[in-house]
Each structure stands twice: as C-alpha cells, then as structure tokens.
C-alpha cells in the first residue's frame, strides 16, 4: 500500500528518475526525529531572540513593555530545550540503530572515505547521479558532526554567559573554567558567530533535502516526519549484507524485511 502511494505520489516529471521497486525501511527512530525537530524549533527561536539580545531591533512602546525580558526568557527556555534535544541525540549515538550510530558521522573506514569522495564528486558536478545511502551519506554525516559540535559549543559558551548572570556557585563550578580560558567577550563573540553558521547550514540543509528527495525518490523529506524511507530492494539487501557479513544471509534478511515492511495488499 505504502509502496503504491509512494510511487503514485512521485510526479512524472522529465528531470526525475523513475521510481524503482522500493521497500519501506524504518530509518529514523523517534528520538532522532524528536531531537531533530527540537533543534529546528529551538535554533529558530534562539536566533530570533539571540539576535535581538545582540542588537535590539524592536523598539519598546508603552510603560509596561518587557521586550528584552521576554526575549531573554524565551532564549533561556529554548536553550534548555536545545540541550535536552542534544542530550537525546548524544545518547542515541550509542544505543540507536545503525543509521544513528556515531560511526555514521566520522568517516574513519576506507569505504566511508571513498564514499565521501564519491558524494563530493556529485555535488561538484562530476557525476550524473547521486550516490544513494539509506542513512546519512559520508559528507552529510560529517556536516552533521560539525553541526553537533556547534550546538555543543553554543551550549558551553551559553552556560558560561548564563553563569555570569545567575552567579550560582554550582553553575560557576561547572562552567567557570571556560571564562578563565577564553575571555567572556570572546565567548560572547563565538556564541554570536556560530548563529550564522546555523543559518548557512539551514540554507544548505533545505537545499540538499529537496534535491535528494527529487533525485532519489526515496521519500527523504517525509522520513524526518514519519521515520520511514523508501529504498530500492537491492539497496537494502546490499546494506544488510554489510551488517550481516554474507550476501546470502543478506538476501534472506532482505526478503524477510521486505515482506514484513510491505503490508498485506
């Protein structure tokens, strides 16, 4: 049924590849989707409020105005939500499925490194077709690693700035080493500058998501809502072969998974 819906939903446009025989694979587990959307929402609210805190762009009207107060309230609240999202993602690096594992983000194996070059060639217009991956491709994985590092940097610098305002001994004990290492003004600058990094990434991320959605017809855009991607059967078999070790076992597993994922017609 899903397969029918998916193939039917794929518009018959001249620049698109025809959708092949696909199976539905549960790629993104709920904690991954949860942390993704928490990050999206909080980075948007943190950017809007944070930019205001850097350069107040709304002028207050009336005697009961509390613009900066609200901006700071939302900023701090969002910051704690972002930290929660990042925490969930960090945990899922280790207990999630194979596509969520930490090794998808650091191209250490020879295969991932080769894939890194292959994907780079596609984006450099040196290949006709994209290289398909069920999870993240090595370039994307690495980009997300950078993003996670940026989120963690924002959390650390943010806490250092927050500890300055709150003056809590516990918080100062936990993060006080950072302002001693880097002056508070430069922490503020880093905290502000990384926001633009998120904006750059945001533009690029939307673009690649749409591009890959169109080129691969894998339901990539839908997958961040539902968790399911649509993958050609042989791709899944190939992928499973990697996990299981033998092609034969993989074929069996693929057949099994294909039948279990395809609801009865």
């Amino acid at each position, binding site marked *: 049924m899903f397969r029918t819906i998916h193939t039917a939903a794929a518009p018959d446009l001249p620049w698109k590849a025809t959708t092949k025989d696909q199976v539905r694979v549960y790629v993104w587990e709920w904690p991954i989707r949860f942390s993704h959307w928490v990050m999206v929402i909080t980075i948007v609210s943190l950017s809007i409020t944070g930019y205001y805190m850097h350069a107040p762009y709304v002028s207050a009207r009336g005697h009961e105005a509390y613009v*900066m107060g609200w901006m700071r309230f939302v900023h701090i609240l969002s910051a704690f939500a972002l930290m929660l999202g990042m925490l969930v993602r960090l945990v899922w690096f280790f207990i999630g499925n194979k596509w969520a594992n930490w090794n998808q983000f650091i191209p250490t194996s020879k*295969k991932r490194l080769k894939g890194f070059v292959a994907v780079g060639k596609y984006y450099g*217009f040196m290949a*006709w077709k994209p290289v398909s991956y069920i999870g993240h491709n090595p370039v994307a994985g690495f980009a997300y690693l950078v993003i996670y590092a940026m989120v963690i940097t924002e959390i650390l610098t943010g806490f250092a700035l927050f500890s300055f305002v709150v003056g809590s001994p516990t918080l100062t004990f936990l993060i006080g080493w950072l302002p001693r290492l880097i002056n508070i003004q430069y922490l503020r600058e880093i905290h*502000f*500058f990384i926001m*633009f990094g998120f904006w*750059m990434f945001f533009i690029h991320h939307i673009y690649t998501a749409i591009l890959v959605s169109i080129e691969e017809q894998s339901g990539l855009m839908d997958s961040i809502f539902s968790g399911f991607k649509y993958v050609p059967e042989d791709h899944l078999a190939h992928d499973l072969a990697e996990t299981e070790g033998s092609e034969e076992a993989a074929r069996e597993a693929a057949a099994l998974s294909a039948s279990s994922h395809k609801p009865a017609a």
Partner: protein
Amino acid sequence: MSDLDQVALRDVLAARGISRRQFVKFCSLMTATLALPPRYVHAVVKALDKSTKPVLVWLEFQDCAGNSESMLRSGHPSVGDFVLDLLSWEYHELIMAGSGHHAEAALDRVVNECKGEYICVVEGAIPMQDGGVYCTIGGKTALDIATRVCSNAAINIAVGACALDGGLVRSSPNPTGALGLSEAVPGVPNLINLGGCPHNPVNTAAVLVHYLTFHELPELDEYRRPLFAYGNLIHDQCERRAHYDAGRFVEEWGDEGARKGWCLYKMGCKGPEANYNCPSVQWNGSTSWPVKAGHGCIACASPRFWDTKSPFYDRLPKVPGFGVDVKAEEIGWIGTAAVGGAMIAQVVGNIIRDNIKPKDTDDHSHPPVN
C-alpha cells in the same frame, strides 16, 4: 611609640575640622560598603577609636597617580582624610614631604623595623622586560622594590588596574613587559586586589577598616578581589536596568533615549559583563558614576579590560585577523549570503545536469557504497 600615637583619634580628627558625627557617618559608610549588618557600626567605631595607627607604605610604579588622586580628592571630608589619620603613612611619593635619600631611608626603616607588621599598598604596573629598567626609583627597579617591600608586609593591597594585572601599561603591545603585582612577585603575603581605573577609594578604605577591625582580610574571589566589592554584576545593580528589560535603548549619543536616561546597552555598555559595586558606592562622595552620567560602563575593574573589553562603544570585540573594522556580524551576513548564492548556483547546475544527462545513464541511482 611616638607622641603622635598617644593622641586620641577623635582629637586628631577634630584638629582637622572633622566632627565626631562625620566620623561615625564614615564608619557607617564603611560598614555598609562591607555589606555588614548595621549592628557592626558600633564594633567598627570602637575598633577605630582604639586603633594604634599601623604603618602604611604606598608604592607607586608604572602609574598615573590616579589611584592616589582618587583616594585624596574624593570629597569633603574625603575618605582619604580618615584613612590618613587612622594609619601612619610612612611612605607615599605623591604626598610625602621628604625626598631623595631621606625618603628612601624612611622606606628602609619601615621594612627593617616593622617587618611583617606594616600594610603595603601598590599602585602601578611592574615592568619585567630588559631587567626591569623601564621603572627605577633611587636606582632600584620596581621589581626589586616590590619584592623587598611586599614580601615583608603584613598585607598587600594592589590598587587600580595596573597593579591588578598591568592595566593600560600592559595592554597590547606592552613594550615594557609590564605585569601586575600578583604575577610580577608571585606569592606576596595576604594579597588583596582592588581593580578599577582608578580604584574606588571607598572600597580601599573599607578593606583597611575591615583589617583594622577584624585583623583579617575580607572574603576574596578567584582574582583575590573582595567579594563585597566585586561579587555582583554592574548590570544587576544599574539604575537603568528597567529600561534594558523593557527594551528602551539609547540609539545614538544625544537622542531622545539619551536625554531620558535609557539603557546604554547598544552604545557598548559593558555593565552586563563587569563585576563591581560602582553603581551602589559611586564616586565623588556618592554623587554619580559613569552610567548615571550618561556613559556606558567600560568594565574598568575587570581583568585585562583594555584589551578584552574594547572597543568600548561596541557590544562585541573585533574579529582577530580580519582587518581593523570588521565585525563578526558583517562576516556572518556575508557568509550566509555566500552560501545562499552557492545554493542557487547548485540548483541551476542540477537543472542543467538533469537536462544534458545522456539517455543511457542508469536511471537507478548508484547502489550505496556502505
């Protein structure tokens, strides 16, 4: 003990035209500055009355004498008036009558005869480069004098930004290799830092009064600054804070907001990143302080403030390695626009690629490598 020491403090003060009432008011100010409960006023008055005038020496190195001036000209009766009578000031280049060998002999006498008993106040930075030749007094380098005098003192008080960490003298490029007292002479006994450009004389007097009353230093923070003076954010004590929370800001000097006393945040006020009791103690007999006078805080009491808190009229420091006048914001916007442009180029490129793609290309995307 000399004859002078026998004279009661109240008589000395009366001789200077300072009434008992003014003296008790001074004790109240000290108690309040130290953040002690009002019942301690009595203890302070009693302790100061009985004070046996401990010896104090005030050393000046690479300085502008601004801290001495701040101490002596803070109002009438100035904090200095009281402190000068509470302590026996044996050496202070700016105000002492003696000069040359006589002056040096006075300092030597203190170090030799009052070893471990006198109070040493240090003002100014200490140059370390080229054997410390950039500041010498009576043929001795500042470092030699500081090492000898400070090491033998009961307590050492570093007043002003220069004595705290080198201040203006140490700011980039620091040609004389200047350092603050704690770094130039590591391990000086009972050091207490009173940063600020200049130091606030009320705080310095409060430290002295605390020492005379309780015979110990007040509680210190990680930079050895007293918590009563450096424990709170300026921003949290600022009288313009309500305008900050409301979102009313001065946009340019002399505009409506500036005339109405709105928040100076957008003019680069460093109040949100500076710890000091400036807004509560204030200056010139508690008349005013920078923000009250309409100028943003420059965080003069913060460590290395000349280098780390400038530009004083911008929120954030300049980005290193990007020329003189480039802001993080400009780099950020240009970078974001560049990425946006690159993505548009990619879209165009992809449409062209899909259109010129040879027909025999496998419709199926390549199988995954992993």
